[in-house]
């Protein structure tokens, strides 16, 4: 009987389990630390209860989403949803294109294999400065220059895109295979030819992929820039929230959701194709 128990195939599993390090105390400690941080955090986040009209507002918002203002959804004037969606997309497209173009010289100037290290450091500091200021704050600054409207959204996004895009461009540039340039040199190519067949093919795919990824981000951002008056679907959405036109809010929210879902799907599809070639 003893013997047959020892022969039990589960025995080695039990032994392995017993040999596992016992870190119960460590886990309790980590749990306590997390709990303490959460408790500290909760000190300023006090729940004051729902405001008197809060429950009513919540109900109206849900009702508005269930019954969006269909007239607005298919209204083809500049106040209608189709034009606002088009304007939002246009802001994101122009912002991405200008940002991606502005990022090219900046990223070449901050790549350590192209320029001397001190120069690269200066341009990296500039990019860091651009990244630190939140996009909403950029919009608040630009609005003083351009005045409210979609134009403000375009310039804001052109500047904000530089931060992330140039960071990814720099990685691509620093990974350039310089062996190709040497062999082109040996074959007697001039500078222009070297850039055309030696540099561009190596960089173009990753540059375009980065730009498409940024377009995805910019589009979501373009919907919120409207809150400060920078055009797109955000401005009328905010206006209808503050003037309690919840059926309009429903219409704008549906447009927003559908737009973002479609763009996310498209951008994933295009980027997979760029990364793995045509299937």
């Amino acid at each position, binding site marked *: 009987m003893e013997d047959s128990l020892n022969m039990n195939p589960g025995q080695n599993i039990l032994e392995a389990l017993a040999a596992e390090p016992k870190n119960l105390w460590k886990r309790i400690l980590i749990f306590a630390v997390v709990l303490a941080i959460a408790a500290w955090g909760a000190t300023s986040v006090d729940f004051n209860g729902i405001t008197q009209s*809060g429950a009513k507002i919540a109900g109206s918002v849900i009702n508005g989403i269930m019954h969006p203002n269909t007239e607005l959804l298919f209204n083809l004037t500049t106040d209608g949803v189709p034009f606002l969606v088009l304007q939002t997309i246009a802001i994101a497209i122009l912002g991405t294109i200008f940002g991606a173009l502005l990022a090219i010289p900046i990223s070449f100037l901050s790549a350590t294999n192209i320029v001397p290290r001190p120069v690269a450091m200066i341009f990296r500091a500039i990019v860091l400065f651009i990244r630190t200021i939140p996009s909403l704050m950029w919009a608040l600054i630009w609005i003083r220059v351009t005045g409210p409207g979609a134009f403000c959204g375009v310039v804001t996004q052109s500047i904000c895109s530089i931060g992330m895009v140039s960071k990814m461009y720099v990685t691509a540039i620093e990974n350039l295979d310089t062996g190709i340039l040497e062999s082109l040199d040996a074959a007697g190519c001039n500078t222009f030819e070297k850039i055309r067949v030696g540099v561009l093919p190596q960089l173009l795919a990753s540059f375009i992929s980065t730009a498409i990824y940024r377009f995805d981000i910019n589009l979501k951002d373009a919907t919120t820039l409207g809150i*400060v008056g920078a055009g797109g679907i955000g401005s009328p959405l905010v206006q209808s929230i503050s003037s309690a036109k919840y059926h309009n809010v429903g219409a704008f929210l549906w447009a927003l959701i559908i737009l973002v879902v479609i763009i996310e799907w498209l951008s994933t599809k295009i980027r997979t194709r760029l990364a793995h070639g045509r299937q």
Partner: protein
Amino acid sequence: MRIEEKGHVERVKARQAAAKAAAKREPLFDRIFKPETISISNGNTVDRPRSRTPLILAIFLAVVWIAIQATGFSLATIIERGSELGTILGQVLTPNWEFIPQRVIGPLVETVQMSIVGTLAGCIVGLPVAILASSNINHNKPTLLFFRFILSIIRSIPTLIYALILALIFSLGAFAGTVAIALFTLGIVAKMLYESIETIDMGPFEAMQSFGATTFEAFWSACMPQIMPIYLDSCLYCFELNVRASAILGYVGAGGLGVLISERTGLRRYHDVGAIVISLFLVVWIIDLISDYLRSKLQ
């Protein structure tokens, strides 16, 4: 003779069908702009498809033109009033240091607290939702699609819009911002998590089930150790994002630094805005360092 003839006709038909199918397989572009045929010295011919660059360029320019019309873009305004931007940025770059201890510290701490509580709440809710939204664990198609649908809707609404609506429901203040952050975190963490849960090794899970463990026991000891590092990693990533995001939530009245940003830009006190930017940058940098350290411990 007859049989031969019939065979010939069939062969011709088959060849025509094959040619038609080949033509159909070609992209529309190659059917409109016929490929250029090049003869090689040995008599063979090669088809070279026409370059697509002009077409792509034309579409690109048309899209840019439409976009410029829709947004009212004007380079002249930038050139005319660009100096204004220089003045503002000059003021931002010379921050009013005294402003930091006076007004910035309090809202900054509140911003960090909001993002801690919001991230924790979102991550705790996100774990079970992600498990229910991964196709290798939840085999019930309708509930799977339901959870994924809800998640993609949650993700597609921007945090600021949540904050705006929630500030009306919960009254102005940090609570509305925290709920907005929690919703945003839930959307992202759950998506990142269910995508990685679908790639885990289900072998240990099946082995434990064959030993007689219940589904929950098997999941807890076979799948959780695989999921945990990914889960904690996405939580940290979200926390980093949330500190940046929650700084501007106050613009719509949802507590934190944004209230101050809104006030100071409204008053055109850009030296104070510079002080806010500097202190925000420092906090984000410190949090990035801490989260990098924790992440290295995870591996």
